[in-house]
């Protein structure tokens, strides 16, 4: 409307001025017209940038590795309106990833711009992950991108989620983690490109989950482009039989027969020799063997419990001490020996990710199944013997110490208000959460209840500081949400009330 009035004013003014021969009126009329055309050009350029910025960045600037151009185009595009700064940095990082070689100067510039961003969103975290990928830090990149998918959906541009998911799918496919690739495609709010859909279709075939038919795979391949490069992958997938969904059955199928395990050692009858044989056997092997069969760890722990019960070691040590002339030190030497055993069992449990109590329970169930016993199921902790109980306590104490140290570091930084860039704050929180979750997995609910008050206090203060003082809503909101979920899991009523208020849930 305003433009229309200006146009009328300009045209009429010009005609009037020309007719009247008034030079001042003529200049005003020309200036008005120039202003009008300038405005029109500005709005046309803005509209074009909004409409075409995203496609131009995606199809021109990013593939050619033009990081600055990609950033500028993305900043104005509609695609990144929820987080224009993060979107610009993400597109810059993507352009860097498209270059044939990593350019540290560009990475440093982008990292510096990222550090200056306040109230970071998912796009910024994903940009940081892509920078880590460009620098060759694949684990770091994976950690950041997975964490970014946990951020608030409302603050995450859909394009950012898609880019993160596609990178993670490519990473899973590259490693042959097919089931993981399929799972990533099921994340909410993700709209995958044709190429990613081809990878997921192929992955579902290899993972043995329900996936596309042969014709479906051909269509996905045709739509994905790069036909020469993807044809060998398609041929591999077509050569793999398709697994259909199992139909729901009224009665559960009978359990499969117990697998024949041919990697168990031959065990001597002497308790010490038996425990040492198992100890040597499983410490020499990959922890995955214990993770897949927790009963094996349970058998090892029970073997050491039996050694302790029989007191043969103490007798042996006393005899050797007397022989070597160190009378009176037998007890201490035996204690040192069992302390080393406890340390090893705790380390094995941590490495394989299986709680000792759970392993012993699995071993008991295995024994009961073999003898067709169906007695009452005892509490897992009640099954622990002297050595396995000490190993559990040792591991819990170590994990608790680790979590408390991480939480105290966070708390002391919060108290002294030592601020880090937004993305670094997110990394700090992710690190504490991972330590806590890993400890919780090994120590069970009991350890989670022990750890939670400290973690809740530190993380809540941290998140409140981020929210109130630094306006980092993107980082603090997921922390409140996680604290609420964990408070409900451990049954901490006060924490539940507090976090419900923080999250805004009644």
């Amino acid at each position, binding site marked *: 409307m305003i433009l229309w009035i200006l146009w009328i004013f300009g045209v009429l003014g010009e005609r009037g001025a020309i007719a009247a021969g008034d030079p001042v009126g003529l200049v005003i009329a020309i200036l008005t017209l120039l202003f009008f055309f300038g405005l029109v050009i500005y709005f046309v350029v803005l509209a074009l940038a909004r409409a075409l910025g995203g496609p131009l960045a995606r199809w021109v600037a990013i593939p050619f590795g033009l990081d600055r151009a990609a950033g500028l185009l993305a900043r104005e595009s509609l695609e990144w309106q929820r987080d224009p700064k993060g979107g610009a940095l993400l597109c810059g990082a993507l352009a860097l*990833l498209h270059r044939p070689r990593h350019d540290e100067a560009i990475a440093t510039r982008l990292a510096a711009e990222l550090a200056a961003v306040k109230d970071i969103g998912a796009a910024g975290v994903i940009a940081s992950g892509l920078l880590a990928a460009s620098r060759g830090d694949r684990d770091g990149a994976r950690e950041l991108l997975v964490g970014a998918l946990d951020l608030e959906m409302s603050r995450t541009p859909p394009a950012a989620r898609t880019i993160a998911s596609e990178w993670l*799918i490519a990473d899973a496919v590259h490693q042959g983690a097919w089931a993981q690739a399929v799972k990533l495609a099921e994340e909410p709010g993700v709209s995958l490109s044709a190429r990613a859909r081809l990878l997921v279709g192929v992955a579902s075939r290899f993972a043995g989950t329900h996936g596309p038919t042969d014709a479906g795979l051909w269509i996905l391949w045709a739509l994905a482009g790069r036909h020469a*490069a993807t044809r060998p992958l398609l041929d591999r997938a077509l050569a793999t039989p398709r697994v259909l969904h199992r139909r729901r059955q009224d009665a559960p199928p009978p359990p499969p027969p117990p697998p024949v395990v041919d990697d168990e050692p031959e065990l001597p009858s002497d308790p010490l*020799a038996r425990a*040492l044989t198992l100890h040597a056997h499983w410490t020499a092997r990959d922890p*995955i063997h214990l993770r897949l069969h927790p009963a094996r760890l349970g058998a090892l722990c029970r073997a050491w419990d039996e050694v302790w019960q029989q007191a043969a070691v103490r007798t042996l040590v006393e005899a050797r001490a007397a022989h070597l002339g*160190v009378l009176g030190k037998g007890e201490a*030497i035996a204690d040192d020996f069992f302390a080393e055993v406890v340390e090893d069992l705790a380390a094995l449990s941590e490495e394989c990710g299986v709680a000792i109590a759970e392993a012993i329970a699995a071993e008991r169930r295995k024994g009961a199944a073999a003898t067709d016993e169906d007695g009452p199921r005892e509490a897992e902790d009640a099954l622990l013997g002297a050595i396995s109980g000490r190993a559990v306590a040792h591991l819990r104490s170590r994990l608790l110490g680790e979590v408390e140290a991480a939480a105290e570091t966070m708390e002391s930084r919060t108290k002294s208000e030592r601020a880090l860039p937004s993305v670094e704050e997110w990394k700090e929180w992710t690190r504490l959460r991972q330590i806590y979750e890993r400890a919780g997995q090994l120590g069970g609910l009991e350890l989670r209840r022990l750890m939670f008050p400290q973690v809740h206090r530190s993380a809540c203060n941290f998140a409140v500081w981020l929210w109130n003082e630094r306006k980092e809503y993107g980082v603090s909101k997921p922390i409140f949400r996680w604290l609420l979920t964990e408070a409900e899991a451990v049954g901490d009523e006060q924490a539940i009330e507090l976090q419900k208020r923080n999250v805004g849930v009644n």
Partner: protein
Amino acid sequence: MARGGRFADNPFYVLGVRPSASRLEIEREGQKLLGMIELGLRAASTYATPVGPRPRSADAVRGAMADVRAPERRILRELWATLPAEATRPPPSPPEGDPFRRDDAPAPAPAQSGWEGAFSLFGWRRP
């Protein structure tokens, strides 16, 4: 301590003697091994342990001899060396396929390794 270190670094396995060996026998075996290592004899280059063979160095031999001189420490090491070095089978080479697959997982499909071209399909450099 590293996994299996109680066995792999045990002085009795490093020196190739049984825990019942006298102090004199241990010293003699240690000196013999040091001489053999100095001459570069292959027979002294590795030693057997319950967690598989390990490379033997002059430093490891000297460390092992020092380790068993203190009686308390020696008894502790003796307990871990109760097993003969050949008592257990060494770990086999990793089997092909997906080690994360559970035994009760349905329909064993042929194992498929990853695909090298996954990142380049999107035009990205591989990290």
